[in-house]
């Protein structure tokens, strides 16, 4: 407990010159956010935005983007395979992935596979730290990742083509086009990735067998003002992928996995004076086919279709006070070989309030009540506040109760599913300090999360595996985020870094959870002079335990590792109409031997070349 308090008050004594921050009224750009809650109802919440330029200049997999550019730790079943996060020491299904304001975590396993998300499809990605169940529902315990397609309502026409080639026969090709006026806008994107993924297992005579994959991502987003008060918006995103599941150091694989995800949303927004009403109808489809043997026809199937209707009503009394009510209904129907045809209906009511009484203080109070088919009725709340104490210094604080409902697998899997499960429930508190200077930003956060009724699969008395609500976990730690940029004459320098110290322990055994490193850090540096940019990315992951009894050595833990990527980008020409650039990246330049999941080595040193053309 003492440690926790130390984290929470870390550095609180830092002083700055007393000068109330000028209330920077942001000039509204002609961009309509797909999820305004992120901006308007999160005063005291740490949000890190990865802009479109960061997305463009990074690997296309969301796993790699976040591993090198955030505090989140990832585990991948080998490169390109199923990937899941641990956000602030929480489990893979305790991070919500939110697509344009809608929680898209799988109904089947409660997770999102971060290697199925192609970052080229989004205009920005936000990392919202801490609990967000009031706003984003089940699973938003460690934090949430927001995939945004913001619509640009101005006269523009822009098309980008991107193609690349890399080691292990990695090929990617994509284009993204956005055209619009003040009255309408259309955005279209297609990306295809294909890799043999047969990298060498360093230090052995083996290679990554059966690891090939390819996937196709498509998205269409459009908006049109049908009157000066009404906008119609349509968002669609498709993913279709096929992966062979790679073997390990201790066993080959002959498995194949096909999955598809379709997300569609139609939205009607009407704004009159202080009032804004938004009606959204969403369809989510997820499907997988698992082939134990890729050469055979038989497979096991799981799929879920969800229809979701969301209405929210926002009242903006003035610049300082607004509130929002949200009603949401969803119906999910599952189908698969491991369960019959489960159906889940959920209804939720949410109230959000944001108030900024003066230049010094802003706060929010948020409540949500859910009703589900299973009879669970989680009630959650959050409060948050921001204190703009000095010109360059800000304190953010928030506390919340959050939950995660059992998944279809937990409830209905045959055999083993347990209908008596209750949702995991979690309390947390988060304190952040932000130091904002023109060329330099530092965020320092301390948090504490207590989660009980954790859902875990265990063998029962008859030897069958079945999930039960067991265990209580406390996660606490400190996070540091530093961003800095300088321009000296025509020389530009950009540095950003993250470090996190994470304790996540089972309160019964006082042992650290498996696959949660105590230390994780990364650093990204870029130098630009005229047409040339040189950049370096570094990631450090500390030791992790792979067994619950926290044994050291090959049978109970994985060694820490450092991975560095060095790249160079050259702009051949750039004018108002056209732009052509090429990029070469050497990944894992130190040829580090590392595994982030036991017995699944990660790639050796490899290269990637990208060519981007904008017209």
């Amino acid at each position: 407990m003492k440690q926790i308090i130390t984290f929470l008050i870390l550095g609180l004594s830092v002083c700055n010159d007393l000068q109330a921050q000028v209330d920077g009224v942001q000039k509204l750009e002609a961009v309509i956010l797909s999820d305004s809650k992120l901006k308007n109802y999160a005063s005291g919440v740490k949000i890190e935005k990865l802009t479109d330029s960061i997305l463009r200049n990074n690997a296309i997999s969301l796993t790699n983007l976040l591993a090198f550019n955030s505090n989140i730790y990832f585990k991948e079943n080998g490169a390109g395979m199923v990937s899941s996060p641990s956000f602030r020491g929480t489990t893979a299904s305790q991070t919500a992935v939110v697509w344009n304001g809608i929680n898209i975590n799988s109904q089947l396993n409660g997770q999102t596979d971060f290697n199925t998300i192609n970052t080229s499809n989004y205009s920005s990605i936000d990392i919202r730290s801490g609990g967000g169940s009031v706003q984003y529902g089940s699973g938003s315990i460690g934090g949430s990742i927001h995939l945004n397609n913001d619509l640009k309502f101005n006269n523009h026409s822009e098309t980008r083509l991107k193609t690349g080639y890399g080691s292990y026969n990695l090929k990617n090709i994509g284009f993204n086009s956005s055209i619009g006026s003040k009255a309408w806008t259309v955005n279209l994107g297609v990306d295809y990735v294909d890799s043999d993924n047969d990298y060498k297992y360093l230090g052995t005579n083996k290679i990554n067998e059966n690891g090939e994959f390819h996937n196709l991502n498509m998205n269409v987003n459009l908006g049109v003002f049908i009157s000066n008060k009404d906008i119609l918006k349509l968002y669609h995103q498709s993913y279709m992928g096929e992966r062979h599941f790679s073997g390990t150091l201790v066993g080959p694989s002959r498995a194949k996995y096909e999955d598809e995800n379709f997300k569609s949303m139609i939205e009607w927004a009407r704004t009159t004076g202080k009032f804004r009403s938004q009606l959204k109808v969403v369809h989510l489809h997820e499907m997988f086919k698992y082939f134990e043997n890729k050469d055979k026809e038989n497979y096991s199937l799981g799929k879920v279709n969800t229809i979701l209707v969301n209405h929210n009503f926002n009242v903006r009394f003035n610049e300082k006070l607004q509130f929002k009510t949200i009603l949401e209904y969803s119906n999910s129907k599952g189908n698969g070989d491991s369960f019959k045809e489960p159906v889940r209906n959920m209804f939720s009511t949410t109230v959000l309030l944001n108030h900024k009484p003066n230049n010094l203080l802003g706060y929010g109070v948020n409540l949500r009540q859910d009703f589900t088919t299973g009879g669970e009725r989680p009630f959650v709340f959050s409060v948050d506040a921001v204190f703009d104490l000095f010109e360059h210094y800000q304190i953010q604080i928030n506390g919340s109760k959050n939950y995660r409902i059992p998944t279809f697998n937990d409830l209905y899997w045959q055999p083993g599913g347990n209908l008596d499960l209750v949702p995991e429930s979690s309390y947390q508190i988060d304190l952040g300090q932000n130091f904002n200077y023109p060329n330099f930003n530092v965020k320092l956060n301390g948090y504490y999360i207590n989660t009980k009724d954790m859902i875990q699969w265990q063998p029962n008395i008859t030897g069958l595996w079945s999930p039960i609500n067991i265990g209580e976990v406390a996660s606490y730690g400190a996070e540091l985020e530093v961003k800095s940029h300088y321009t000296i004459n025509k020389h530009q320098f950009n540095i950003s870094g993250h470090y996190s110290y994470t304790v996540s322990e089972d309160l019964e055994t006082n042992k650290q959870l498996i696959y949660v490193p105590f230390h994780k850090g990364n650093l990204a540096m870029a130098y630009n002079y005229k047409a040339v940019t040189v950049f370096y990315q570094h990631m450090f992951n500390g030791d992790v335990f792979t067994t619950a009894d926290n044994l050291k050595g090959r049978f109970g833990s994985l060694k820490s590792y450092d991975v560095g990527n060095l790249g160079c980008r050259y702009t051949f020409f750039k004018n108002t109409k056209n732009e052509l650039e090429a990029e070469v990246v050497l990944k894992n330049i130190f040829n580090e031997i590392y595994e982030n999941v036991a017995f699944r080595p990660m790639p050796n040193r490899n290269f990637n070349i990208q060519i981007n053309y904008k017209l």
Partner: protein
Amino acid sequence: MKKIILSLLSVSLFVFSCSNDDDGGEQLPLGDYDNGILVSAEGGPASVSYISDDYKTVENEIYYNVNTENLGVYLQSVGFNGDLAYIISDNANTITVVNRYTFVKQAEIKTGLITPRYITFLNGRGYVTNWGDGTDTTDDFIAEIDLTTNTVTGTVDIAEGPERILAKDDRLYISHKGGYNINNIISVIDTSDNSVETITVNDAPDEMALDSNGNLVVLCSGDNRTLKSDFVETAASITRINTATDAVIETLEFDAGMHPSQMAHDNNEVYYAMSNKIYELNDDASDLPITSVLDVADINLYGLSVNNNKVYVTNASFTEQSELLIYDLTNASLLETFNVGLGASKIYFN
């Protein structure tokens, strides 16, 4: 590293001492892992633990310590033939052949096996049950292994889910627990012509033993998948089969709700575990025992062996180290507890 050097030293010592051991006196151990208990753990990571008979020496991960490589997952079982141990890793489709006393790797069989489960030996050949793909009910087979070349030289197709395999005379008896499903037969293969006969028994036949009357004893757990929505319970049984005629002699059926999970045979007794109690059934008895001979602690009882009035069980965990518990049957008391590998499942006496 130190352990490796030590074990290598002891191996060379053993070679040296072997050539000098006909001067009478006490028999020297045949290797570091002679005169003890081996516990195989499914993993992952898969491992084998050694506990000396006097309980003074305990070493986990002995295969890794000797050979500095990991065994394939998941370690299903170990078969012993002469000085050799055959370690079967089912998902890795691999049998790793080691010297059973030194655990030095001798060979690896990686071709021709698909989800191998158990091995037995007959007339210079090894016979291995294979599930094939777990989701395919028609690709199960027995692989025949030439023990001199360590290669698969032939296969015999059989029904879904072959598990244990046992040799008697020139015949092989195979229990079909059912793999991902549930089956209810014993296959009998005549190795002279590889013809296959089947004997129908209760659901989920698994452990088999030859009893003191020369009969084959089979434990059938019955269908107990209570969490399955279309679950229909079927009765468990201990079934005795005449190995001369391959006819069922008697089926000792359990009452509804009673599902024994493991069986072992020692001297004239069958031992089985049910709801963490150990029961004893004499080879000549025709009624199932009403009372247990031992109450085991509240554990995830996953492996059972009995030897000289001692009961060995594993308390398996798949997220951390498991335990081996040793009980004395004479006074039904716990003698020792040892930490062993993840998913510890089988106990062998070396």
